[in-house]
């Protein structure tokens, strides 16, 4: 299925963009439950106000903003460099891809070139981040099903090896603050590349183990299959991106569509879902880990020598020409974009983040209506959000 098939038509009936109204079956009153903001399954401080008819969800109202940190306005009063460490804290599981998207936006604004080696390092780090994110997101999904611990600990064991690599290169496990406008901050040593090759060589084994543990599990299938169906038409109209959209069967991957960085050099496949349910979203993430490993192997083989920072690049005290730029990447959770307007000063005039988590969350009610309340937790987990990015 292609994206063009779902271009919106005019003259839609009234309320076409709202989820269908549900009516309770019996005579009893609706039970209103506020799940959150500290519910263990809500990935942070997120509240779902659900109206229940027995076990069935009649209405669902997401409430967020508890973690609002004024990120966008703060960035307008700060130099371009000063916002870089704050982008780490948007989606704190994938700090390196956040850095990358922001660096892309500023590079587009200033017209800086990025050296070849830095591009390869970015791809390597970006794909490692994707593996970390997908593995832990599967772990959290299964934990919400009630399997507390085991799958998550398996995922975290693999994540730990990758985070050690991040620490050895960037100095921090999670808040890496590594990419700069016109390259990367420090070069990777040959020893680091060798360690990375070793870790990447061990990753297929981890995915196999993970699959043996989970994919055939009857309980998991019974809980996930046929739950939380998201139709491709709705997904496209709501602006859903990333694994969520691909699980709905729409072939849209910005790495292929946009070819930012050097992604057009790597052959990889884009897995697509057929049933559009929670199980598909789970499987898509597992398959994407496998594709990421392929990209990593190739990038680690081809990485050239040279500098990692453009010699003309300035990290502070530069004033881009007045204009606007939008840098977007395929972050592990979807399309992450940074929109910047410069008025010629040392600070951005306007700074805006297009967060995949927030936009993927907007169809939560559509997916949850008519489902059991226990499945809503699962559907929510399959969206894979981080509240740091939703609220900013």
């Amino acid at each position, binding site marked *: 299925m292609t994206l063009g098939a779902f271009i919106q038509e005019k003259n839609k009936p009234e309320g076409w963009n709202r989820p269908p109204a549900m009516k309770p079956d019996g005579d009893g009153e609706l039970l209103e439950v506020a799940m959150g903001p500290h519910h263990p399954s809500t990935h942070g401080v997120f509240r779902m106000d659900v109206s229940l008819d027995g076990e069935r969800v009649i209405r669902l109202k997401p409430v967020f903003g508890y973690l609002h940190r004024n990120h966008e306005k703060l960035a307008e009063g700060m130099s371009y460099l000063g916002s870089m460490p704050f982008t780490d804290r948007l989606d704190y599981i994938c700090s390196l891809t956040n850095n990358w998207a922001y660096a892309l936006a500023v590079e587009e604004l200033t017209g800086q070139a990025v050296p070849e080696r830095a591009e390869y390092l970015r791809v390597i780090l970006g794909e490692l981040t994707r593996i970390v994110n997908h593995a832990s997101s599967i772990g959290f999904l299964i934990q919400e099903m009630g399997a507390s611990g085991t799958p998550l600990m398996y995922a975290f064991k693999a994540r730990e090896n990758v985070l050690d690599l991040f620490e*050895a290169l960037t100095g921090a496990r999670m808040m890496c603050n590594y990419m700069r406008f016109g390259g990367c901050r420090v070069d990777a040593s040959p020893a680091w590349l060798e360690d990375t090759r070793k870790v990447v060589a061990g990753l297929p084994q981890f995915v196999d183990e993970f699959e043996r543990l989970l994919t*055939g599990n009857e309980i998991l299938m019974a809980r996930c299959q046929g739950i939380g169906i998201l139709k491709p038409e709705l997904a496209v109209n709501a602006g859903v991106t990333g694994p969520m959209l691909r699980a709905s069967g729409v072939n849209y991957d910005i790495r292929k569509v946009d070819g930012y960085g050097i992604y057009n050099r790597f052959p990889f496949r884009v897995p697509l879902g057929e049933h559009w349910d929670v199980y598909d979203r789970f499987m898509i993430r597992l398959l994407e880990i496998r594709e990421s490993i392929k990209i990593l192997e190739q990038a680690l083989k081809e990485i050239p020598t040279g500098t990692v920072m453009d010699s003309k690049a300035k990290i502070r005290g530069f004033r881009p020409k007045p204009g606007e730029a939008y840098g977007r990447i395929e972050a592990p959770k979807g399309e992450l974009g940074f929109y910047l307007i410069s008025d010629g000063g040392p600070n951005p005039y306007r700074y805006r983040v297009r967060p995949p988590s927030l936009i993927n969350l907007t169809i939560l009610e559509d997916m949850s209506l008519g489902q059991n309340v226990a499945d809503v937790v699962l559907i929510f987990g399959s969206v894979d959000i981080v509240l740091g990015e939703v609220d900013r």
Partner: protein
Amino acid sequence: MLGEGLLKGLAETARNFAGSFVSKERLTTVQYPEQRIAPIEATRDFPFLVYDGDDWQAGMRCVACQICEKECPPKCIYIVKSTDKKPDYVGKPQFYPARFDIDISVCMSCQICVEVCPFEAIKMDTEFELSTTDRFGGLLFDREQLAKSNEYYHRIHPTEAEAVDAVLAGAKAKAEAKTTTAAIASAVRGAEIPAHPAGDGD
């Protein structure tokens, strides 16, 4: 067969459980204060000020240019420039920080201060066991608490410290060569030695 996938998964956990007794690779956790994993060299947490030699006040590399104060994203650095000057590592008179405070409870370990410092004066520490019961002054470090010797820097980040030393030695040699040529030139022309331009700051 129903339950086959379940059994397969259980076999996987059993393999890991049994394996943890024989294979070190499967036993991934350490018992923290007693056992510690080897530190990673590039690791960073909070900034400190480097000084050369034995006296932290005389050897302080910081010249109070206040670039780090300006660039610090969470604004956790507070500097007061001195009124008098002291010689720096090449012997040139420079200002020094009369006050240099870092609020560790605000610092987010982004190391932007390290990147923007033109004098290699501020570096990242690896000390992480800093918890204290004093909630007001306990995490506000003044310049005496922040000052750490170059030897300490060499101990925690050996490769990086070598590179920094090489850069500083190069700058020193260049400065000395310049002074000698300037002295010869001035002796020849009988003119005064031109004063050095001010530091690289803003």
